[in-house]
């Protein structure tokens, strides 16, 4: 079952991987070139993991799977990730 949520729901998983406040991280889409905070993206949760999509053009920005204690991140939809190093 596909469950449409948003980048806020993806944040828990992303923040288990990265030590940053991930909803405020800015992602530039390879599809349309727009830059949006992860918190404003659309996230789709599957049994296998999740897909974070561009809110403008729907390109898959980040795919995350968690299998046998290992995270797999496919980030080919992200051209640039901007992370604030200050909380």
């Amino acid at each position: 079952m596909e469950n449409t949520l948003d980048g806020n729901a993806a944040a828990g998983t992303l923040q288990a991987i990265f030590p940053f406040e991930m909803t405020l991280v800015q992602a530039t889409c390879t599809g349309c070139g727009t830059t949006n905070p992860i918190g404003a993206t659309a996230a789709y949760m599957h049994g296998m993991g999740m897909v974070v999509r561009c809110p403008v053009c729907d390109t898959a920005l980040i795919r995350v799977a968690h299998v046998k204690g290992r995270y797999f991140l496919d980030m080919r939809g992200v051209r640039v990730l901007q992370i604030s190093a200050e909380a």
Partner: protein
Amino acid sequence: MERTALPGRLSWQLGEVVATQQETVRTKSITLALPTWRGHQAGQHMDVRLTAQDGYQAERSYSIASPPEEEHRLTLTVERLDDGEVSPYLTEELRVGDQLELRGPIGGYFVWEAQMGGPLLLVAGGSGIVPLMAMLRHRAAVGSTVPTRLLYSSRSDADIIYRDELDRLDGTDQMLEVVYTLTRAQPPGWTGYHRRIDTDMLREVAWPSDQYPQMYICGPTPFVETAAASLVTLGHEPGRVKTERFGPTGEA
């Protein structure tokens, strides 16, 4: 040089249920005490993880309903989904004294703090009221006078979560206005809105775009998309409209 600490990677911890409260037939508030809690901001959420005896795990996100000012404990309000994997357990089985695996607080995007100012527009569909209630409770706790309007869509009178508290806040705070719309059933003599949120309703309730309000919408995905598109139609910048969607849990 002093540096603000990064949030750091999230890890799971065990919280203990210290109180529960039935809010409506379908929703329940669960108050937890956590061993390490560094506080939260209004609008943030927690992930909850249940593990079955065979090792199967299910995770869900639930918004925090309590304000940051209530220290050392936090309250989640959970809506029961009949075919859900997690919410029936949380709303029906969980008891005071039980332990629950959680991680958080999560999210720095969908948050409001009094110093961010306003005017403030909150738009809630169904249990989408929960993170917005944390904002209203925070606003009340710090004595903020930021002009605030809440537009809250529910199916019926009995589905309005936090009804008494919202009416009390609305009645005592001159700078707060609470507007309900009941989409499916209205009590006799109801004079409020009785349809789903649309552009006309938001034109009447929302602050005009030239006042540059802070806007937060939370509810089921179609509800959030309709409300956000309407606010943009009314001239608000898309970047000022912050949204939090949850999965298809029925209409608000």
